[in-house]
């Protein structure tokens, strides 16, 4: 049997990261599945590619330029995927690549730094896609000696990837195939391993499958679990003891202290989220009349209180849960039953948007999604879409159909198209819209439309200024000034996702703090502007990827429902979109030559020149 697997290690330059002790003690040993052939890496700066389909193993040096320009996480993932993937491949074929990436602050003393990112071509949207999860997996991955792991090709039989303190092994997972996330994680996390895995949904290539880390932390969106399933990769477990290096520890301590001061002073981070978790948004969003209700046909849900953070706090015995090095601890568990409680987005979709005010049903839906490994936003929104088209208010039947791979599991867009009712899919570029009705938050409307991965509230986190007033409250009902603002927020978010830090840090931190933390971590000075520019480079490269996939500016729009009755004026929206392109230096959604040259993306844009000549 040929196993086609590659592990690609990108390390920052000598100047930035000392060679970790483990590599001085013992060279990295990579054990290949079956034939037991070994390769030894002399030191961490080598990049290893193991390509069993071609029977080829390659070790090569890191490209410093990539580390400097894309820093880590989403940025490096996007760059590697762009370079390595041929256009127009089937995302579920063995040609697709799955990249697990951490960033320069992952697992360090930097607060909210436990996240990791997975990047691939999405089977749900066909776009480039990064999805991130909190927890402890990212930190453990770095401690195991790796910053980035690229998985190529597909195995014939189920396997899992193991990294045990620098030792890499591909192991038989036939006994785990057919099991859900809880069972798989509990089996593989013995001996202190941190586990990312797929459930039955990923195995069945369900287009909205997630990759679950440590039971409940989801790389939820975009169906990357199905990519993992298509490779027959059931799980990835890591364990490590290596110290994570910081280039300038003194400066880092200073910048961390500054960041902590700001986070502690932020009422949203240290009070709202810390008291009720993300469900604290339910009553607020409902009061503002932007609660997705009845598949976005209404904006206010009568019984919202019954699914709110306050209601959960009053009626459940709650235990706070957190990710690595985070004092906010926004996750919630039902102490009695030892089960995770749903986050705001999950509540919005399975609750008001599906006209359901039974919190227990939402809790059960959340458990099912997490166990099968399914994105709760896409699943919830698809259930809402189904209820609109079929009637009724039973969320269990459509959810069962989704997790078991029935026709609904293809997501709301494909389902509604089949029904001849495309207008009932509340999605952008095929990705279901999260829990904020864009008609009442116009910056978010533009951000949904122009997002490279489809409707997402985290690309430009406009929830912060437009809803929570952080850092400044701006008029959510006006498009004025939004086009310039959105592109900056999108660039900053791309930077945050490359560091990699939790998005909630942005309630308190700005590009100034992020660039300081980055500089101390890597030992090279990044100004605030260089940080934003790095984000801009990533955003433009993602855009180029999508253009190469024939995803054009006509996809930068919203479902027609939002333009009906002039709730959002189409004319105004189009004019703001044009203005956004001007700020971006794009022509009809395509970056101009000048913009690409200024961002150092000349080589990457070569296909554009050839296409246009």
């Amino acid at each position, binding site marked *: 049997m040929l196993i086609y697997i590659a592990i690609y290690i990108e390390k920052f330059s000598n100047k930035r990261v000392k060679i970790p002790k483990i590599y001085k003690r013992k060279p990295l040993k990579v054990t290949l599945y079956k034939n037991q052939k070994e390769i030894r890496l002399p030191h961490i700066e080598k990049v290893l590619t193991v390509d069993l389909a071609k029977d080829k193993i390659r070790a090569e040096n890191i490209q410093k330029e990539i580390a400097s320009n894309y820093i880590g996480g989403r940025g490096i993932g996007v760059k590697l995927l762009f370079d390595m993937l041929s256009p127009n491949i089937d995302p579920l074929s063995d040609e697709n690549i799955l990249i697990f990436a951490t960033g320069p602050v992952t697992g360090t003393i930097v607060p909210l730094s436990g996240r990791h990112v997975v990047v691939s071509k999405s089977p749900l949207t066909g776009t480039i896609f990064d999805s991130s999860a909190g927890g402890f997996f990212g930190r453990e991955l770095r401690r195991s000696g790796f910053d980035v792991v690229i998985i190529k090709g597909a195995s014939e039989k189920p396997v899992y990837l193991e990294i045990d303190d620098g030792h890499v092994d591909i192991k038989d997972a036939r006994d785990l195939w057919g099991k859900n996330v809880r069972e798989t994680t509990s089996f593989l996390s013995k001996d202190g391993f941190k586990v990312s895995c797929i459930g039955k949904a990923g195995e069945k290539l369900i287009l909205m499958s997630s990759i679950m880390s440590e039971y409940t932390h989801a790389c939820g969106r975009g169906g990357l679990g199905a990519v993992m399933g298509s490779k027959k990769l059931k799980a990835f477990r890591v364990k490590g003891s290596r110290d994570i290096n910081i280039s300038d520890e003194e400066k880092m301590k200073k910048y961390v202290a*500054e960041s902590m*001061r*700001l986070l502690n*002073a932020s009422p949203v981070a240290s009070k709202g989220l810390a008291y009720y978790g993300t469900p604290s948004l339910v009553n607020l969003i409902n009061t503002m009349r932007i609660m997705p209700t009845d598949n976005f046909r209404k904006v206010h849900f009568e019984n919202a209180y019954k699914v709110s953070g306050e209601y959960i706090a009053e009626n459940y015995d709650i235990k706070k849960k957190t990710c690595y090095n985070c004092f906010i601890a926004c996750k919630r568990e039902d102490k009695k039953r030892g089960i995770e409680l749903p986050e705001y987005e999950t509540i919005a979709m399975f609750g008001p948007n599906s006209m359901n005010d039974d919190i227990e049903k939402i809790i059960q839906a959340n458990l099912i999604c997490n166990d099968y490994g399914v994105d709760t936003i896409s699943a919830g929104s698809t259930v809402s879409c189904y209820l609109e088209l079929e009637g009724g208010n039973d969320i269990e039947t459509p959810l069962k159909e989704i997790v078991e791979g029935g026709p609904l599991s293809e997501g709301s867009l494909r389902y509604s198209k089949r029904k001849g009712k495309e207008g009932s899919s509340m999605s952008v570029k095929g990705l279901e819209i999260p829990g904020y009705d864009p008609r009442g938050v116009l910056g978010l409307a533009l951000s949904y439309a122009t997002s490279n991965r489809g409707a997402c509230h985290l690309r430009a986190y406009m929830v912060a200024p437009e809803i929570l007033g952080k*850092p*400044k409250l*701006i008029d959510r009902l006006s498009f004025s*000034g939004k*086009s*310039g*603002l959105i592109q*900056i927020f999108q*660039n900053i978010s791309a930077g945050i996702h490359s560091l990699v830090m939790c998005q909630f840090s942005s309630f308190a931190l*700005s590009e*100034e703090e992020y*660039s300081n933390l980055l500089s101390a971590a890597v030992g090279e000075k990044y*100004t*605030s*502007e*260089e940080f*934003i520019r790095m984000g801009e480079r990533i955003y433009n490269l993602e855009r180029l990827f999508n253009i190469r996939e024939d995803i054009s500016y006509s996809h930068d729009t919203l479902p027609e429902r939002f333009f009906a009755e002039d709730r959002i004026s189409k004319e105004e929206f189009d004019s703001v979109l044009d*203005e956004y392109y*001007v*700020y971006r230096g794009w022509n009809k959604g395509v970056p101009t030559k000048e913009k690409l040259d200024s961002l150092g993306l000349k080589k990457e844009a070569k296909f554009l020149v050839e296409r246009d000549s």
Partner: protein
Amino acid sequence: MWKEIAKFGKKLVDGGYLSSHFGNISVRVGDSITVTRSGSMLDEITEASVVTVDLHKPSSLDLIASSETIVHREIYKRTSALAVIHAHCPFAVVESLLNDGSIEPYDSEGKFFFHEIPIVTGNIGTKELAENVATSLEQHKGCIVKAHGTFAVGKILEEAYVHTTMMEHSSKIKYYCDLTKNK
């Protein structure tokens, strides 16, 4: 857009951050800058008191725009700022004369907002000043031009306004504290 500029112009003058003529305000709109005109009074801005000039290069309309337009333009070219306020805030000017390099705020808000406030040099309306200010604002939210006044940036005008008033507040606190300590 001129109404927004008028609103913050009036607030700056009313708050004592500058006297009527001593400052200028601009916002970026796509590939243009809308900036207060030379000689306009910031507490009496009307539609006729602002002018829209090209973001990338000087144009004939620069003739009537604020003499500091060269600095505003350089800031927009080099940073992601969408609003800029320049004000001759008295305590900030005093502190810039008493210190070199930068000042570190004593007050907690100032520490939160700025960590440090750089002091830059250069003659009014010169390319040198434009470059020094823009370089400094690539990393900071505001700076003080020695013996001259503050430049603050924001993603919206209100943010630039807050940065301006915070720089003046921190300068004032620092001035009084140092005065008391040195007694």
